C-alpha cells in the first residue's frame, strides 16, 4: 500500500515543486522588503529623535508580541473592511513585511547600539552629517554584530511563510494539506514538505554559523 502511495507521491512531485516555488517567492520577496524596511527603521530607532524612537517602539512591540497567524488574518480579512482589499499573494507579502521588518529592526537597532558613542562623536566632530556618520562609520562596524542574527532571522522568517497557507496561498505547506487529502499517508507527505523547507533553510543555517565564527574573530 505504502509503495502505491509512494508512486502517487512521485506523480505529484511537480505539484510540490510549484509549492516550493511559491514558498521561495514569498520568502525571497518578503526577506528583501523586510531587510530594507528593517534597516531604515532600525537606524531611525537608534537615532535620538523621541518621536521616531517611541513610534517605532510601539510598532515593534505589537508586531513581535502577536502571533503571525493573527496578523495575517487582520491583513486579509480586516483590512478589506478599511478599504484595502488584497489577493492572497500580496496580502501574504504585506503581512510578512509588517512582521519581519519589526524583528529585523530590533536586530539592526541592537547592532547600532553596540557601537561606542565615541564613534558617533568622532565622526560628528569631523563634520560628517548624521547620514554620513551612519553610512561610513557606524553601519560598517555594526554589520559585524548584525549579520549573524540577521541570517538566523531569515531562517525563522522562511519557516514563518508556512502560515500564509491559511489565507489560500498555494505554498509548500498548503500543497501538503491538499495532497494529504488525496494520499492518506500523512507522514510521507509532510516528511517531503519538511524536507523541502529544510533544503532552503539549511544553507542559511550554515551561513549563519559561518558568519558567527567569522565575526567572532
Amino acid at each position: 500500500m505504502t509503495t502505491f502511495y509512494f508512486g502517487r507521491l512521485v506523480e505529484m512531485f511537480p505539484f510540490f515543486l510549484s509549492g516550493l516555488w511559491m514558498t521561495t517567492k514569498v520568502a525571497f520577496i518578503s526577506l528583501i522588503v523586510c531587510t530594507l524596511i528593517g534597516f531604515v527603521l532600525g537606524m531611525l530607532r537608534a537615532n535620538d529623535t523621541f518621536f521616531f524612537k517611541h513610534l517605532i517602539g510601539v510598532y515593534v512591540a505589537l508586531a513581535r508580541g502577536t502571533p503571525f497567524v493573527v496578523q495575517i488574518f487582520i491583513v486579509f480579512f480586516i483590512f478589506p473592511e478599511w478599504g484595502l482589499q488584497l489577493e492572497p499573494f500580496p496580502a501574504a507579502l504585506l503581512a510578512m513585511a509588517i512582521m519581519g521588518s519589526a524583528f529585523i529592526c530590533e536586530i539592526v537597532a541592537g547592532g547600532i547600539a553596540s557601537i561606542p558613542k565615541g564613534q558617533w562623536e568622532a565622526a560628528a566632530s569631523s563634520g560628517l552629517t548624521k547620514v554620513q556618520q551612519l553610512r561610513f562609520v557606524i553601519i560598517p562596524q555594526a554589520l559585524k554584530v548584525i549579520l549573524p542574527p540577521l541570517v538566523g532571522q531569515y531562517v525563522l522568517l522562511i519557516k514563518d511563510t508556512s502560515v500564509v497557507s491559511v489565507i489560500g496561498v498555494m505554498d509548500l505547506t498548503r500543497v501538503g494539506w491538499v495532497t494529504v487529502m488525496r494520499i492518506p499517508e500523512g507522514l510521507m507527505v509532510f516528511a517531503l514538505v519538511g524536507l523541502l523547507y529544510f533544503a532552503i533553510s539549511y544553507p542559511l543555517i550554515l551561513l549563519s554559523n559561518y558568519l558567527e565564527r567569522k565575526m567572532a574573530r
Partner: protein
Amino acid sequence: MIEFKGVNKWFDKLHVLNQIELKVQKGEVLVVCGPSGSGKSTLIRCINKLEPIQQGEIVVNGMSVHDSATNLTKLRTEIGFVFQQFYLYPHMTALQNITLAPVNVKKIAKAEAEKIGREKLDRVGLAEKADAYPAQLSGGQQQRVAIARGLAMSPEIMLFDEPTSALDPEMIGEVLDVMVSLASEGITMCVVTHEMGFAKKVADRVLFMDEGKIIETGKPADFFDHPQTERAADFISKILSH
C-alpha cells in the same frame, strides 16, 4: 576666537557648567585642569556642540555654536577634536581614517586628500603606518593618528580631551611631543590635561575648574608655583605627589 558668555549647563540636577565666562584668543594655548567631575571635559565638548547648553552663548569665529541657524558642518570643520579614547574607526586604515572627512565633508578629490593625509601622518611621525589598521597600532600611535585626523581638515582650533590619560606612561611622551610642536605653529588649542610639564612648556594660560566653575586662571608658572586659591593649591599638591 572662542568666547563663552554666561554659559550654564546641567545634567539633570547637577550643575556641570556654572556661569562660565571665557575668551580664548587666536593662537592661544589654553590648558584646562581640575579634579574629575569638575566640568572640564564638558567645557571643551560644548565648543563643537558635542554637548548642548541650557543658558548663555558660545561664539566660535563669529558663529554662535548652539544657535540652530548656525551651519554645524562648517563650524566643526574649523575645529579638530581629539578624544581620550582615540576613537579611530577600527574598520579603516590610518590613512582612510584621516581622509574620510576631507573627501566627504570638504569634497576634496581622493588623490589630493590622500596626499594631505600622508603629509599629516608624516607630521605626527607615522608616515610608514598609512595602511595599518588601528588594532595594529600602539595606543600612542593611535592617538597620533587621531591627531592627524583632526589636522586633516586644516582646523584653526584643536580641542584635546585628556589626550594622554588612556595611554601607558611610556607612550605619553610621543603624543605630547606632537602637541608641543603644534602649539608652536600657532593653532589655537584647548587642552584638558594634567600633564604639568606640557602646561609649563607651551600653555599661554592655565584654567582651573572645580564643581562647574572656573576657579582660577593664570600663566602656568604663576598658577603651578603660586596658586591663588586653596582648592587649586590642594589640587596641584595632589597631582605633584603621584
